[in-house]
């Protein structure tokens, strides 16, 4: 059937691509325009081009430096934590053993849960007055005073990061586990015969065999985590005083709370530029184009 050439495939792909053009590509392109316009819903009569005023306002905002720093910490710590824990989990699940399916189903569970349920649950767990975390830490004598996880400006960001790590471990575990399961078992047998130890087997077989998957998942996950704003919105709404805002949540808050679509678009454009630079550098550093034509 692969030999046939006809117009059919175009018709089959048309609905999907049509939707993507109207509701993804067109909005993406028009966000470039909105970034250079005054577009406040609170001042509907003032809508019009205003040059780089939005960018000026955004960059000069006293909070912007902190938001940038937060974004960096958020991406590095979250993706790093999720990756390391996901890797450990995948290794633990790699070989068949009694009860593996059960363990696998449970530890993958956070994947099926929405960020608002996760955010809500952790907000409640970490509640200073009635939450169990503070209570247990005090009972066990680990802390003397209550920790205000979500209302202390020095802690809020890290609290949300820890929650996000919890939420995203299954993704890495699923991807890495699947990749590990495609490693031919005789590679390990051959290595054993050659007298290879556990570490050398891990490094030369497990790690090098799934390198492509690692690179791909790190890339996709970084983009996703960078853009994820919903957990932050539910847990802290970016507060206190922007101390837990990252670029994407900052942008959402600008649009949703202050209805300033122009400035929000400017933040978005800057955000997009950062992502593109990152993807480019990441692909070069990892020689991504050689990592299989995915």
């Amino acid at each position: 059937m692969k030999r046939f050439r006809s117009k059919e495939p175009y018709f089959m792909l048309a609905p999907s691509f049509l939707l993507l053009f109207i509701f993804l590509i067109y909005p993406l392109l028009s966000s470039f325009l909105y970034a250079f316009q005054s577009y406040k819903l609170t001042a509907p009569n003032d809508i019009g081009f205003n040059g780089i005023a939005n960018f000026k306002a955004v960059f000069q905002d006293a909070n912007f430096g902190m938001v940038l720093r937060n974004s960096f910490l958020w991406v590095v710590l979250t993706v790093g934590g999720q990756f390391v824990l996901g890797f450990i989990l995948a290794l633990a699940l790699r070989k068949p053993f009694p009860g593996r399916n059960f363990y696998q189903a449970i530890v993958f569970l956070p994947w099926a849960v929405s960020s608002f349920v996760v955010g809500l649950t952790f907000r409640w767990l970490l509640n200073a007055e009635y939450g169990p975390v503070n209570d247990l830490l005090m009972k066990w004598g680990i802390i003397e005073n209550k920790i205000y996880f979500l209302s202390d400006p020095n802690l809020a960001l890290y609290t949300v990061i820890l929650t996000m790590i919890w939420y995203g471990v299954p993704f890495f575990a699923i991807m890495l586990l699947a990749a590990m399961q495609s490693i031919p078992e005789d590679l390990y047998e051959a290595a054993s015969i050659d007298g290879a130890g556990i570490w050398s087997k891990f490094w030369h077989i497990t790690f090098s065999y799934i390198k492509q998957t690692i690179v791909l998942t790190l890339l996709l996950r970084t983009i996703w985590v960078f853009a994820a704003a919903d957990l932050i919105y539910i847990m802290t709404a970016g507060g206190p005083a922007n101390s837990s805002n990252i670029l994407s949540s900052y942008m959402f808050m600008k649009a949703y709370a202050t209805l300033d679509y122009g400035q929000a678009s400017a933040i978005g454009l800057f955000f997009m530029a950062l992502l593109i630079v990152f993807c480019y550098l990441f692909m070069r550093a990892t020689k991504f184009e050689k990592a299989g034509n995915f």
Partner: protein
Amino acid sequence: MIRTQRALITISRVLILTMFLLGVLLPFYWLFITSLKPKLDILTTDIQYWPKNFTLDNYRVLWQSSNFDVFLKNSVLVSLGTGLFTTCFAILGGYALARYKFRGKQMAVYGLLLTQMIPGVMVMIPTVILFSKIGLMNNLGGLIMIYIVGNIPFCLILMRSFFDRIPVDLEEAALIDGCSKLRALFRVVLPIMLPGIVATFVFAFIGAWNELLCAIMFISSDEFKTIPVGLSMFVQNYDVNWGVMTAGAVMALVPSLIMFAIVQRFVVDGLTDGAVKG
């Protein structure tokens, strides 16, 4: 020597997994038992790790004095709509990519992969503006459309990899037997692919069921709010009624958990295939 090493590995495997297991389950346990506690037992500094008094009051309040039934109906509609349309479009497109050779195919695949790099928040504002121009704001159909767009690139690539796994010979045999192409697709190929189709549907369904930010931006009136939006409205108040909130969160969890339990294996296989081999 080797035997003790093996035993050590097994022990550490079980230890690690048990720690993860507890880490995953304890938050859910806390959510669940809070929803079953009476208000006085929730708001107490003498924290009860095992509730003394069980009650279904929070669930009753949730159903009677909030719009939860409306939120639930909207969430079901939006998620089913998203799941069904996404799956149909993905079957069509995946079939085209797997079984035909055509000009621009490589570009189409790369285009789909590239859309994965566009963060959703980026297109939210222009879409809001577009929607308000064409009257799709505050409209469940508009929300479904956004979710289809969000899910389609991945689901289409996933579907394609499912088709790729089914030998073309099967269809060719059916064609020789006098089936039309469409008949061959429906009678021969799709039944074999049922697990993959279910996985795709569930993926899109859960995605739509759980989505929050777009729903907040696009829906403003109570009658069209989905569960995430409805509950997030409560939580932004200072006086959060944790009993009712947690009851709502448990209700919101049920459908995703049931679906996840049923298709966990396909989803895991499907995700891997779709993302790794593309």
